[in-house]
């Protein structure tokens, strides 16, 4: 009883009062799926590598990137970046220039000579990859990193597939392509060139392969029946682009007409311009909004002086000229002939009407099924023939380099599982971090860095790269525009805004934890989390 007058209890801390018992719902930290990652055909963890790039740790960013895709410098040039179309920053100001940062990282890695980490152990298994295009090389890379021995066989004289023989140099300089392929051979992948596989099982036996991945692509230009005079010059786009890589450049003449509306049509038209054509006209059956080619490619082609005749088909071709017919779209959106004819002067006509798969190597393989001119595969990317997998343009897919690279990664996982006698079950995807899950107040406005484009006059006459890269300053600026959708970037908001000090800060890189002894479940942390990485859940009873 030595307490002061009127005092009967010891002074205590309010920590004795566990206010967590008031809670009816509780906050939990989650990782939601950023829309960029969700949209990436190659399955890159874009938010993950931007997180490192923001801090200026480009080596870590590159290492994170190449876990999913071995070709950052190529991707940064030729990918149609669906990630940017999905980017939540687009709802705040403009999408983050993901593709530009990817290219910066890829170019930096080439400059710095960064190499892939070798596999931790060898599996003792060997996989044959047929086709050294994006899909085949991607599969080879992932299989090699999993510890399998890989032999890549290609019919062409050089590795790269459509990246070399389909994509013009002004979009993908060959030294970049060579550097990223050289990194694969340095990893121990054997690439055999000028070797056309005619019997897949025989070749598998020859290299003692336990499994095979087929990715020969689709490189046979589709033809259309167009009545043509004997002197008419008709070529297909794939051959034109392929011969750009050989000593004999194609002779297209001064006036070139390209037939088709895909990206290949634009590639060949822009190539013709660079080869000296004065008039390059694309003839397309439908309207611009229905054109399968990407809008920025159309825009760049128009800037370079390529003309496009919409709603037109080619009726017949003669030496020096061809006849086109005006079309009109019917109610279903199908082009219908109008009977209105026009003559165009043309030294050559290039058909860019799509490509077919050369299925020759599959003749006589039991169980293997072909559907609509492509190879049929099951959910594990295996063909009807045990141990033979297929991907890229030769299966049913959207035909882009990035989709091919994604197929290669998926196939590698399935092949790896199959070699171990298991099945690859992808983990269930995280919930999508859609814009309404973010609190955009905390992001300040910043314009997107526009990649400087080559001077128009210079661009039209050379095969120099059209789009230039970012330097370190603006690459960092661009990376920092990332909202980090759905994934904690340690902004301390939850730690700061909790009225009950019920958030524990665990230190750099270790994020936070809730102290449920005191968390009353008010939910301020969840609503003030900029990136939507906190979810309120009903309190378990």
């Amino acid at each position, binding site marked *: 009883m030595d307490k002061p007058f009127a005092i009967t209890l010891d002074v205590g801390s309010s920590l004795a009062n566990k206010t967590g018992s008031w809670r009816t719902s509780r906050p939990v930290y989650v990782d939601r799926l950023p829309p960029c990652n969700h949209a990436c055909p190659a399955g890159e963890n874009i938010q993950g590598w931007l997180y490192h790039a923001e801090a200026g740790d480009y080596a870590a960013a590159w290492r994170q990137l190449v876990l999913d895709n071995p070709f950052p410098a190529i991707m940064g040039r030729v990918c149609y970046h669906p990630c940017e179309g999905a980017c939540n920053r687009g709802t705040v100001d403009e999408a983050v220039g993901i593709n530009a940062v990817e290219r910066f990282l890829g170019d930096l890695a080439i400059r710095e000579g960064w190499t892939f980490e070798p596999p931790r152990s060898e599996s003792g298994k060997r996989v044959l990859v047929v086709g050294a295009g994006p899909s085949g090389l991607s599969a080879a890379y992932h299989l090699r990193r999993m510890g399998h021995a890989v032999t890549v066989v290609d019919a062409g004289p050089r590795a790269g597939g459509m990246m070399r023989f389909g994509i013009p140099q002004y979009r993908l300089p060959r030294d970049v392509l060579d550097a990223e392929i050289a990194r694969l051979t340095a990893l121990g992948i054997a690439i055999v060139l000028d070797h056309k596989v005619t019997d897949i099982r025989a070749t598998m036996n020859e290299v003692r392969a336990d499994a095979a991945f087929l990715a020969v692509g689709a490189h046979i230009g589709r033809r259309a029946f167009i009545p043509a005079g004997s002197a008419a010059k008709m070529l297909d786009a794939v051959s034109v682009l392929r011969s750009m890589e050989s000593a004999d450049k194609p002779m297209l003449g001064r006036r070139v007409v390209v037939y088709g509306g895909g990206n290949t049509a634009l590639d060949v038209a822009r190539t013709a311009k660079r080869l000296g054509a004065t008039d390059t006209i694309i003839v397309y059956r439908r309207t611009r909004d229905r054109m399968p080619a990407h809008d920025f490619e159309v825009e760049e082609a128009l800037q370079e002086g390529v003309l496009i005749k919409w709603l037109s088909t080619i009726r017949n071709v003669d030496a020096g000229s061809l006849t086109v017919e005006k079309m009109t779209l019917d109610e279903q959106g199908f082009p219908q002939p109008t009977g209105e004819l026009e003559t165009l002067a043309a030294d050559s006509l290039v058909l860019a009407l799509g490509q077919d798969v050369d299925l020759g190597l599959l003749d006589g393989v039991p169980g293997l099924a072909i559907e609509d001119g492509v190879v049929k595969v099951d959910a594990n990317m295996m063909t009807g023939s045990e141990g033979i997998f297929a991907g890229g343009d030769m299966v049913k897919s959207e035909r882009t380099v990035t989709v091919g690279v994604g197929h290669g990664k998926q196939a590698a996982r399935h092949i790896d599982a199959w070699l171990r006698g298991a099945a690859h079950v992808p983990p269930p995807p995280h919930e999508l971090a859609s814009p309404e899950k973010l609190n955009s107040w905390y992001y300040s406005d910043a314009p997107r860095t526009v990649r400087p484009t080559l001077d128009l006059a210079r661009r039209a006459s050379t095969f120099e790269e059209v789009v230039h890269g970012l330097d370190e300053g603006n690459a960092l600026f661009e990376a920092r525009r990332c909202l980090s959708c759905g994934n904690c970037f340690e902004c301390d908001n939850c730690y700061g805004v909790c009225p009950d000090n019920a958030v524990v*800060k665990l230190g750099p890189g270790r994020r936070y934890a809730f102290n449920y002894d005191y968390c009353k479940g008010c939910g301020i942390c969840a609503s003030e989390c900029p990136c939507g990485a906190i979810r309120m859940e009903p309190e378990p009873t």
Partner: protein
Amino acid sequence: MHEVKFYQTGTFTVGNRLLPPELRTVQSETGRSNSLNSGHRACQGCGEALGARYAIDAAMRASGRRIIAVNATGCLEVFSTPYPETSWQVPWIHSLFGNAAAVASGVAAAQRALGATDVRVVAQGGDGGTTDIGFGCLSGMFERNDDVLYLCYDNEAYMNTGVQRSSATPPAARTATTPAVGRAPGNVFGTGKNVPAIAMAHRIPYVATASVANLHDLERKVAYATMLHGARYIHVHVPCPLGWGSAPADTVKVARLAVECGLFPLYEAHDGQVTGRTLIRRRAPVSDYLKLQKRFAHLFAPVRDDERLAAIQAIADRNVTELALEGHD
């Protein structure tokens, strides 16, 4: 080359892993003083608990943890210190509802007599204890220019005793004593009692307004005011989910909208002259702010009360014009 800025987090989040630690907020520090600790009995999502920790932690860092806090009666006192427990991790004294400013004046005089020149004295109270009951003592503290920083946490009514109207209750707001009934539901459209302006009229060295929605601004003002000498006054806007009928999760959002719509302007004044204001970033109509609060529900249902909404909007517009809160610095 662009000047590289921290766009991802801007200047708006509590912390930023890309900034050197000394440039981050007090609240982002792992070792912050947590002056108002866990286990206090404030309601879920209490803006006052948040504002008090923000302010006292900032004063603690600015003074090197040499703070004595004097508390008026009110929610803050009741929820933080039910005998024999306390949540305060600072020397803290409570006397009466209306005399916090006078007690603080005395504490400051005692420190001066003891020669403790490094100790800073902070008085804090709610709007009831400041703008009504403690107003005489507050004015006296101002007029004598006593060496006290007075922090008013304004949640716009007597929340502790059951949401009765105070002189800080806004027009049209429903409280227990201003029910939403009759021809003019809710609080009257009076002439207002702008205590920051009254403080400025005393020509004391420093007056500022702050909000729990803008931590950087609040910490800067409190840190600056802590180390200044003479009478100082900071009026902090703190939403009350219980009394305002807003969702506990929306406390910071409601506070932010009060600033962004112009009803709670952020500014500071030296010696009676406005010397700085915080610009509105995304101007919002007052209805965005009001409709999150059930105390204003009668303005929207059963029929929208355009006349009173326009009158409240006019108050916001006047603030924006008078303080030039829109545009760029």
